């Protein structure tokens, strides 16, 4: 193989696939990046066997071929090169090395044969679901963090992705909180019902890959329902689906409440962050007390407080709109910060509560009445 690519294209490509390079693996080749010529372009791929990412970059192909190069070494090396043409030359049959030349720098690195690189199952070009990238990224950002991080129940380390007619529903829960986001599909698309569990990490990477891009993302699932593939412009991410059935979460979202409090997200976030400093002693308790407006006060009040033995305490008040009765509830400071961080800081959030020991429900307040996100957090049982 002999190809010429621009240093900046190569660096960007390596940055994209680098997220899928195995950090620790029993299969040494997964620490390498696969480089191969593909229909006039250069294709870079990496996989840690759970997630695979491929990207295509423009290149001048002098001789077709493929090789694999240690990803870390190549990335560090290319990052230091001047913005000029990089020539990659390898002779897989004769020797196990590749020559990288750029300007007046030349290096030779050991390679592993491309034929040993794990086959990345391609799902093909069958019909996929086309999703608006902004909607997809927002749904991922609002849901993915609520997935479990310990492996004791693999099913909930994933995000449930359900499709029906014109709607996709993403849901994640670590057993203490639950986040559910809907994505409305283009009216022209109607999908057959499906139900998948996608590793949270894969979705996190998809969100990152989307960035500010405006091009639609295609979602495809293989026939065996074992892999999912997201196709972006010049980038493909595929992941092993998690097998099993995701817990039925609809009954965990209460439909009734005793108190509904409407709070500006920015103020709430600031109050919660300050309280979190005082809740750092390990218990992480942030107490919320809601007082409805009365004859004396035009606005309702949300009191946010935290205290730590041997440290001190903190109290902050926010003017809010309250429907229903006075309420108190305590949350883990991280869970509170997580849900507020997932919302538009310029907007408002509606917090619905029933009792100090039952679910708190958070919904963004949308003037147009759109109801595409709900986040349920279990409170902390504390002595008041």
């Amino acid at each position: 193989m002999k190809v010429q690519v621009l240093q900046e294209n190569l660096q960007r490509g390596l940055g994209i696939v680098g997220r899928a390079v195995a950090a620790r693996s029993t299969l040494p080749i997964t620490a390498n990046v696969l480089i191969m010529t593909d229909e006039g372009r250069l294709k870079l791929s990496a996989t840690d066997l759970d997630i695979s990412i491929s990207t295509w970059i423009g290149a001048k192909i002098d001789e077709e071929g493929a090789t694999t190069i240690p990803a870390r070494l190549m990335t560090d090396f290319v990052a230091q090169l001047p913005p000029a043409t990089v020539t990659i030359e390898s002779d897989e049959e004769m020797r196990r090395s590749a020559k990288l030349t750029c300007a007046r720098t030349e290096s030779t690195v050991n390679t592993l044969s491309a034929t040993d690189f794990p086959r990345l199952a391609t799902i093909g070009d069958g019909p996929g679901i086309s999703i608006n990238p902004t909607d997809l990224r927002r749904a991922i950002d609002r849901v993915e963090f609520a997935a479990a991080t310990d492996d004791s129940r693999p099913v909930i380390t994933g995000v449930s992705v359900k499709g029906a007619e014109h709607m996709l529903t993403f849901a994640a829960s670590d057993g203490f909180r639950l986040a559910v986001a809907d994505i409305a599909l283009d009216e022209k698309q109607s999908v057959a019902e499906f139900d998948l569990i996608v590793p949270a990490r894969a979705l996190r990477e998809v969100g990152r890959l989307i960035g500010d891009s405006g091009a639609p993302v295609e979602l495809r699932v293989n026939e065996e329902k074992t892999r999912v593939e997201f196709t972006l412009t010049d980038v493909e991410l595929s992941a092993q689906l998690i097998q099993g059935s995701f817990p039925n979460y609809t009954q965990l979202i209460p439909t009734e409440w005793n108190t509904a409090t409407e709070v500006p997200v920015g103020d709430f976030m600031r109050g919660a962050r300050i309280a979190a400093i005082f809740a750092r002693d390990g218990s992480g308790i942030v107490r919320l007390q809601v007082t409805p407006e009365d004859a004396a006060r035009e606005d309702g009040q949300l009191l946010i407080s935290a205290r730590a033995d041997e440290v001190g305490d903190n109290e902050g008040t926010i003017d809010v709109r309250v429907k229903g009765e006075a309420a108190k509830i305590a949350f883990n400071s991280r869970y509170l910060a997580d849900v507020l961080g997932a919302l538009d800081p310029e907007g408002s959030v509606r917090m619905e509560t029933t009792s100090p020991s039952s679910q708190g429900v958070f919904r963004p307040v949308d003037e147009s009445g759109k109801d595409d996100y709900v986040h349920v957090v279990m409170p902390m049982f504390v002595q008041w």
Partner: protein
Amino acid sequence: MGSPSVLHVDLDAFFVAMEVLRRPELAGKPVVVGFTGPRGVVSTASYEARAFGVHSALPMARARRLCPQATCLPVDFPYYAEASERFHAILRDYTPACERAGTDEAYLDVAGCERLFGDGEAIARAIRARVRAEIGIAASAGVAANKLVAKVASDAAKPDGLCVVPAGGEAAFLAPLPVRDLPMVGPRLEARLAELGLRAIGEVAAWPAAALRARFGRMGEELRERALGRFDAPVLTERAAARSVSRETTFGEDEPGRSRLRAVLRAQAEQVARDLARDGRAARTVVLKLRFPPFQTLTRSHTPARQVALADDIFAAGADLFERLWREEGRRPVRLIGVGVANLMPRARQLRLGETLEADRLAETVGSLRDRFGDGAVRRAAEMTAEGR
């Protein structure tokens, strides 16, 4: 009338005693524990070595010259620390008014504990017996009206003795002792007193106060007060806020049975949970402790994601640690088992989705029944074997 209430308890040649415990062949021989190396000094010398003039703070090299036949051993703090902790725990069983004066000594004020444990002398006897039985080494104790005299008394009682100074008899007890025995008298003051012909504490006490003040200033007054056995600093109680809560059980005969051990653990977990509930606290960490004969103590801890407060959770974590540790140790008979919690914090439990508060309500109800009617009022079936029923 009972004996006075202030105790000074001091472990005899502590480091040496611990070394002899694990190397019984050293018993009755000169042993020196200290820091090896060219500038090392003696930490503790056995009484046999002391007969050769070896004492603590002496350079190791000199100790070797004075007593070439002595076995010299390096200091093994982690090993002593276990026993030290156990020693202080025994003391705290009698009174919270317990002032730690070092790894191997402490003052206690047992005033008010008579109905529970007997007078100062009885408590001193009980403590000495328990230290002997549970750690395997000797403790000497002094019982007196104040810390100063109690300290001198325990020194006078060594080795392995008990000395009670009746109230009012302080000056008489101190009088015949050399001035050196009085805390605050170091070699220099001793020499200056000797210039005046004062060698016994009683001779100092007999000197006119004005003369001592003229000679030594304010220190002179203090010296005379002490020589008369008067001292008013109270026994300082340790911090009230507990940093951990635990329960342990020492078996009369080493216990080989898994079900008995687990049942004891279960009962301990219940008690720990109740102590926590009473203070409205919970814990981050569960600690399990096992001791195998003669004095090998192992602890393991686990810090779950959520804080623990309920007996079920403490037992679950404790039992898990126990099973793993006991397996590692070849399931040998256990001398002591204990479970506790550390890293205490205000009680707050992160609820799970779909969880109700029934477990908490049950624990609260059982706890209040036991507080009112005693431990036997409500009991788990799993605790039954612990009581042999």
